[in-house]
C-alpha cells in the first residue's frame, strides 16, 4: 500500500498575546517581551495510505480540526511539513498549489455555514469546474453537475434553489457534491456528520462510503464519535492535547487498546451491559494547551505515570501494526487485560 499523504513532526501554535504594547512586561526590573501561544498541535506524525479511510478521534480541543486544516493548506504549520505523494505541499505558492487543489478537497462540519447563502446550488457546484476545468463546454459542465448531484442523491432539477431551502442532511450532500465535482483522490472530512440528525448521519456516512468505493477515494476523517469510527475507518489515530497517542487498525484498537488514554476513551462508550468492570474514570481535567505539561502530555491523568513520563516526551514507536507513544507500554508496565 503506497503512502498518499504524510505529515511529519507538525506543530501549530496560535499566538494569544496581543500587540507589542500588551506583550511588554516588567519583570525583576527588566522589560521583557512576553509570548503566549496556544499549542494546538505538538509534533504530529501521521501517514495516510492510498485508498484507506484514516479516522482521527479525540475530545474537543485536542487539535483534530487543526490537523485537517493544516493538511488542506488553510493554515500554515509553525513547524514540520505535509507531503502529498512525496512532494512537500505546505510551503507552495498558491499557483503551485493549484494542481493539488483539484486532487484534495474538504467537507466541512456545519452544513448551515459551508454553503454560500447567496449562491444557488448550481452556481455553487459549477464554480469549481469553471475554475479548474475551464476547457469544459457548457453542456458538459451541466452534465457533470447533474451527474454528481444524482450521485449524492439530490434531484438535479433543484439546482436553481438556494441553500436555505434545504434541510441539514441535503445541504451536507450538496457539500459532498461540491467536494466530489473536481474528481479528487483525497478528501478531508472535518466532523461531517456531527451537526446532523442521528437518522441522517447513517445516510451521509453510507453516501461517503459508496463514493469511496466508486471513485477510489482516500479519506482523512475527523470525528469524536467512536461508533462512527468503528463503522467507517480502516485505521484510527487517537489524539490528545495536540499529540498522537496511538495509531492502530480499527479492529485492533477496539479489541485491545494499548495506550492508557485510548483505553479510557474506549471504555467510555456507553454499552447495554449492567456491569462495566473495565470502565476507567480519569482524574482531573485536560491541561490547558497554553502551558503544556512537561514530558508526556497525558502524565497528569495517567494511572501508570512515573518519573520518566513526567520528564521525557514519548516518541511514536511501531509495535506490530500499531504505532504508539507511551513509556509505560514500552516498558511493559501496563498489565494487558
Amino acid at each position, binding site marked *: 500500500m503506497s503512502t498518499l499523504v504524510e505529515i511529519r513532526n507538525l506543530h501549530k501554535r496560535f499566538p494569544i498575546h496581543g500587540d507589542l504594547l500588551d506583550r511588554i512586561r516588567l519583570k525583576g526590573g527588566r522589560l521583557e517581551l512576553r509570548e503566549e501561544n496556544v499549542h494546538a498541535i505538538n509534533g504530529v506524525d501521521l501517514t495516510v495510505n492510498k485508498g484507506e479511510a484514516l479516522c482521527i478521534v479525540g475530545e474537543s480541543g485536542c487539535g483534530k480540526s487543526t490537523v485537517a486544516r493544516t493538511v488542506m493548506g488553510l493554515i500554515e504549520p509553525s513547524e514540520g511539513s505535509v507531503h502529498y505523494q512525496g512532494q512537500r505541499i505546505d510551503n507552495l505558492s498558491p499557483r503551485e498549489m493549484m494542481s493539488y487543489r483539484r486532487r484534495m478537497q474538504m467537507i466541512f462540519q456545519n452544513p448551515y455555514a459551508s454553503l*454560500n447563502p447567496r449562491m444557488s446550488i448550481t452556481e455553487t457546484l459549477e464554480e469549481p469546474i469553471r475554475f479548474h476545468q475551464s476547457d469544459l463546454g457548457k453542456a458538459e459542465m451541466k452534465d457533470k453537475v447533474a451527474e454528481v448531484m444524482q450521485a449524492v442523491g439530490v434531484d438535479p432539477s433543484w439546482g436553481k434553489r438556494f441553500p436555505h431551502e434545504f434541510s441539514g442532511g441535503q445541504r451536507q450532500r450538496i457539500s459532498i457534491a461540491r467536494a466530489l465535482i473536481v474528481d479528487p483522490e483525497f478528501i478531508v472530512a472535518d466532523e461531517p456528520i456531527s451537526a446532523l440528525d442521528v437518522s441522517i448521519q447513517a445516510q451521509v456516512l453510507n453516501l461517503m462510503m459508496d463514493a469511496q468505493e466508486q471513485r477510489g477515494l482516500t479519506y482523512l476523517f475527523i470525528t469524536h464519535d467512536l461508533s462512527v469510527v468503528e463503522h467507517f475507518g480502516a485505521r484510527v489515530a487517537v489524539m490528545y492535547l495536540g499529540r498522537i497517542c496511538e495509531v492502530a487498525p480499527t479492529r485492533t484498537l477496539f479489541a485491545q487498546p494499548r495506550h492508557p488514554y485510548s483505553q479510557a476513551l474506549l471504555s467510555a462508550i456507553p454499552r447495554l451491559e449492567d456491569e462495566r468492570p473495565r470502565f476507567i474514570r480519569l482524574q482531573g481535567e485536560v491541561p490547558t494547551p497554553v502551558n503544556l505539561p512537561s514530558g508526556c502530555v497525558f502524565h497528569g491523568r495517567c494511572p501508570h505515570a512515573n518519573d520518566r513520563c513526567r520528564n521525557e516526551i514519548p516518541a511514536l514507536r511501531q509495535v506490530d501494526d500499531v504505532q504508539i507513544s507511551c513509556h509505560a507500554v514500552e516498558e511493559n508496565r501496563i498489565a494487558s487485560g
Partner: protein
Amino acid sequence: MTTQSSPHEPLLNTADSRWQQFLDSHFWHSFKRDKVAIVSFSIFFLFILASLSAPLLAPMDPYDMTQFDLMDSELPPVWQEEGDSRFLFGTDAQGRDMWSTILYGTRLSLIIGVCAVMLQAFLGIVIGLSAGYFGGRVDSFLMRLADIQLSFSTLMVAIIFLAIFQAAFGAELYQDLAMVMLVLVIGIAEWPQYARTVRASVLAERKKEYVDAARVIGLGPIRIMFRHILPNTLSPVLVISTVQIANAIISEASLSFLGLGMPPSQPSLGSLIASGFEFIFSGAWWITIIPGIALILLVLVINLLGDWLRDVLNPKLYKG
C-alpha cells in the same frame, strides 16, 4: 419542507416566478403593512419622477438667460394677490420661475447625492473588504486612515478644499466643474462610514466555512472577497446608503448655501435657498421657504425609508 412539494411541477417562467417570489417575500409584506413606508416611498418616487422629467414639466429652462425677464422678478406665488398665473411658485430676484428652478434644482441635488454616495460606497467597500479580509497590519493601517478621516468634519474638509480650488483655478473653471467637485469632495470625505460597516460584516462572514470551502477550491482572495463575501454583507450597506444619500444632499445644500457649491446660474436646492436669503426680510419669503420645504421633505422621506429598511433587514428588530 417546501423543497419537496414541487419538484415535478413545470417550472414557471423565471421572470414570473421572481416577481411571485418578491410578492411573497417578507420585504413586500412589511412594506404593505407600514403606512409610513408607503407614504415616504410614494413621495420619494414623485421626487424622482419630477426630477427626471424636469425638462418636460418645467414651463421654462432656468439655465437659459434669454427665457426670463427682469421685469418679472420677485413675483409672489399664484395664491397671493399679486401673483402671476404664469408662475406657480412665484419668481426669484432674476425673474426665474421658481417651480422650474426647483425641479431642476432637485434633479441636481439628487444626482450629486447619488453620485457622491456611489463614490463613497465604492471606496468604502473596497477598503472595508480588504481591511476585514486581510486583517493584521493592513486592517490596522486602513482603519487608522478611517479614524483620521473621521476626525475631520465633512464640511470642514469640503470648505477648505473647495475654497482652495476656487482660489487656485478661478471661479470660472470652478463653475464648470462645480458638480464634479462636489461629488468628489462629499464622496471622499465620507467613505469611512462604509468601510467600517463593511469591515464589521466581513469579520463575521470570513470565519464561516463557505469561505474556507472557496479557499480549498483554490480561488484567489479578490474573487473570494467580491464574489463570496461581498454579497453577504450588502444588507447593512443598503441601509447606510439611504442615510448617506440624505446626508450627501444636506452637505451639498450646506456647501451651496455657504457659496461653495453650485453656482447661481445652475442652482441646486441649497444655492436657491441661499439666493433667497437676501430677500427674505423684504417680504419675498418664497424664494427661500419653498425650496427649503422641498429639501426638508426629500431628506425626511429618504431617512424614513432608511429606517424602515433597517427594520426589515435586521431580523432582531422584527415586531410581532
